[in-house]
């Protein structure tokens, strides 16, 4: 449970995951933000107004998955690193997970990395497709990982393979 070990439960996630029909249409953002905290940069960052206005700053984000096109602007601005973009249409066997990453060194496109789940456990391999970095990202880079389709809702972090 989140409050006890920092890991959201299946029930928590069920509230925020897009409908399967929406996932089948392409990239979409998922805000894994489950607590009322005084925070709203995700709302201000979304140019498509896909995140509902906050009646008060302590509200939880609500993403209108129909309006969201998975652009990833909010992924970069969220101080909780709690927003991910998932694209299940990447290929028949692989999905893309775009995740915020604040560690150095950054991986390079083509690198194979260890895919990590929300518990911090290795769940398989992922291939780096793209790395959005640079000044305008202000230190919160976005790494695009190609992962097996069945892991698209598991993989939320990665570790670089040890260089020998």
């Amino acid at each position, binding site marked *: 449970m989140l409050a*006890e070990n920092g890991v959201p439960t299946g029930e928590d996630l069920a509230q925020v995951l897009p409908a399967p029909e929406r996932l089948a249409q392409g990239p979409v953002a998922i805000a894994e933000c489950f607590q009322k905290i*005084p925070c709203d940069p995700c709302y201000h960052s979304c140019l498509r107004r896909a995140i509902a206005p906050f009646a008060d700053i302590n509200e939880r984000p609500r993403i209108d998955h129909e309006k969201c096109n998975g652009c990833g602007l909010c992924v970069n601005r*969220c101080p909780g690193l709690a927003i991910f973009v998932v694209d299940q249409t990447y290929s028949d066997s692989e999905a893309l997970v775009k995740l915020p990453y604040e560690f150095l060194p950054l991986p390079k496109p083509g690198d194979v990395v260890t895919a990590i789940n929300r518990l*911090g456990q290795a769940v398989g391999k992922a291939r780096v497709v793209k790395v959005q970095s640079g000044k305008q990202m202000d230190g919160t880079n976005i790494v695009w990982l190609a992962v097996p389709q069945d892991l698209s809702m598991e993989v939320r972090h990665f570790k670089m393979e040890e260089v020998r």
Partner: protein
Amino acid sequence: MLACEICVIGGGPAGLTAALHAASLGASAVIIDRNDYLGGQLIKQTHRFFGSKEQKASERGISISRELSLAVEKEKNIKVLTAATALGYYKDGVVTVEKDERFLKIKPQKIIVATGGAEKTLPFPNNDLPGVYGAGAVQTLVNVYGVKPGRRVLMVGAGNIGVIVSYQLLQAGMEVAGIVEAAPRIGAYWVHAAKVVRAGVPIYTRHTIKGAWGKKEVEGATIVELDEQWKPIPGTEKDFAVDVICLSVGLNPLTEILWQAGCAMKYVPELSGYVPLRNEYLETSVPGIYVAGDAGGIEEASAAMMEGALAGLNAARALGYSAPDFNSRRANILRELESLRSGPVGEKIRKGLEKVTLTERREMRSGLSNLSLLTSNF
């Protein structure tokens, strides 16, 4: 003797905003800070901040600190004394300061105390071994001076600071063996907790540190599970080989100057220690002395900046400065502050503030019969 209109003690987010807002009305201010740089705690916060857009949310603490310091430098009404420690307050309203081994005297008309907080420590066997640090100290070492204090850390305390510092130690290339928390629930925002957990750091709630071990320095630590009554459960000990133990068990407001000035103080657990009574203008029971930020109760940078703004505006107003939009500016800040504190995580602060904020001058007076009569500036 340096005479000035407003003396701001502490150049963290609260103090800097206070001086900027006072200067914006035309008042002049002197900021004193014992560090070599301005910014207070913000200087070492490399993570993006929470809060709303108006409070610079999603910016990193260090960028906020840079912006504020730059604005202060540009403001000709503000004079800055860094590496200067306020030592005392005297009855005649003189603040004494140590700078460059010299003793300075400042005679301000108003004082804003924005001294922030100091880290608490924790008793456990061998907590005096080298390698046991406060989390804030480790954060200063790593983020300000670029020095890693060791290789592998055990963090004690899963509040925002413990969890954020753990994350920053990972970023610095250290290992974090785990985060221990005696309470049954994680105090940090869950989004912060989730990001350290997926980065491989387990959080042990209902656990405490039983002791540290090592010959000349920390070589490891033993943790133990706690039962419903917070008593250690024998046989549940776990050992960790670590060379650093980091304590993040809270801050206490730094209030020496306020005590010396004779401000009425009260112990308020929700605000993390003894804090001064204050009115809605953030003025303490001693007329002309204001409090803002963590010094008045441990909270957050966003709240510290808003309190600083209020204290700055109010102190300048009391000196006779104003602006056509004064009332609306103040009302806006008050509204934002209220909305920031309105949610469930603000509940503790709201409760604490209820105990120390006196809305009626008379109330303050009657509560403090042994203090000299208060004179209203408004």
